[in-house]
């Protein structure tokens, strides 16, 4: 058994230097916060959301389910997600958010790297809850956008 552990430990050390692959998510995030340093959150209806929130015009994916939920009066939320590179990533977030009672429609846009949500009419979802659910899916939220909607292709 000792030999087994030693062999695998040796092989683990021989792996490509994954520790050097240090995506600059945090650095990127800090820069983004700086971009919005002058944003007036006091006058913001979503002042309870964290500093990473972008209350600019949000771009919602052009999907029939999202459009229908939006027409029914749901609030749209679009989160920029880090690490979403394949359909398994999309599936994970679709499954996690699809089970939630406060979500009317969900769509992960790999091209735009966004998680598109339309909440059920009257429902609310804080940034903290959103980030926690994305983390539960195995991914990480970069920014969250709420506000007036533009549908994009």
């Amino acid at each position, binding site marked *: 058994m000792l030999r087994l552990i030693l062999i*695998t430990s040796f092989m683990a050390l021989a792996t490509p230097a*994954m520790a050097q692959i240090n995506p600059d*998510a945090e650095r990127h995030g800090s820069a983004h916060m700086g971009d919005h340093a002058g944003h007036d959150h006091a006058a913001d209806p979503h002042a309870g959301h964290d500093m990473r929130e972008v209350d600019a015009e949000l771009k919602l994916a052009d999907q029939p389910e999202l459009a229908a939920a939006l027409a029914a009066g749901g609030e749209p939320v679009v989160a920029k997600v880090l690490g979403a590179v394949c359909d398994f990533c999309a599936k994970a977030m679709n*499954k996690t958010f699809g089970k939630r009672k406060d979500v009317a429609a969900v*769509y992960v846009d790999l091209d735009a790297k966004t998680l598109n949500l339309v909440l059920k009419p009257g429902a609310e979802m804080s940034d903290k809850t959103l980030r926690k659910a994305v983390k539960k899916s195995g991914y990480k939220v970069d920014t969250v956008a709420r506000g007036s909607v533009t549908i994009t292709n």
Partner: protein
Amino acid sequence: MCRPVLITATCLAFANNAFARPVSYAGGWTLIEDTDRQSTSALIHHSPSANYLLGVKADFDRNKDILFTGVQATWLAKRWFGENHQANLYFWGAAGLVQGVGSTYADDEAGAQIGVMADWETRRLFVSYRASARDYASLDKSAMQAARVGFAPYEGDTGELHTWFMLEVDNSPDADEPLDVTPLIRFFYGSALFEAEWSLNDDQSLLNFQYRF
């Protein structure tokens, strides 16, 4: 005797080597069938969280006629996130029973497997490395490692067919042919992953499958 034959038949029916993103989302289930030039294994597992999974596994060594059945735990030790890429480091271990099948007669013995996997990918590029070792008591003690590179000819969007061309090089020091090169094609579609490989040394096809639900 019937049990190992049934398990082996199940493994072969699924034939695989699909180690892409083994840990699912919290609450997710994944069926993995994996074949390399030495073994065919089937694993069904549940991910209680996005960081680890627990499952049952059957692994049939086709060269040495050894069947391993047991439980496996896989831990996503670290995931690095970027706007356009993702990297992962996994460790896994399995414990169970091993037995000779067919010509290799032996009583059941305790066996264990351990391994490490690392990958880095964008929507167009993929690099991975894995290494594993096993202790099958008197039946076998061996290790292997493999590295893979791949590229996608196009960026598939959500729900579209994703296609990858890959090349894997593996090293099994105890094998007759320690080094092998395996070109393969990988398809992702929705919850399913399918790989078709061709072992250049052994001149045989290998099929891998993974389904997430």
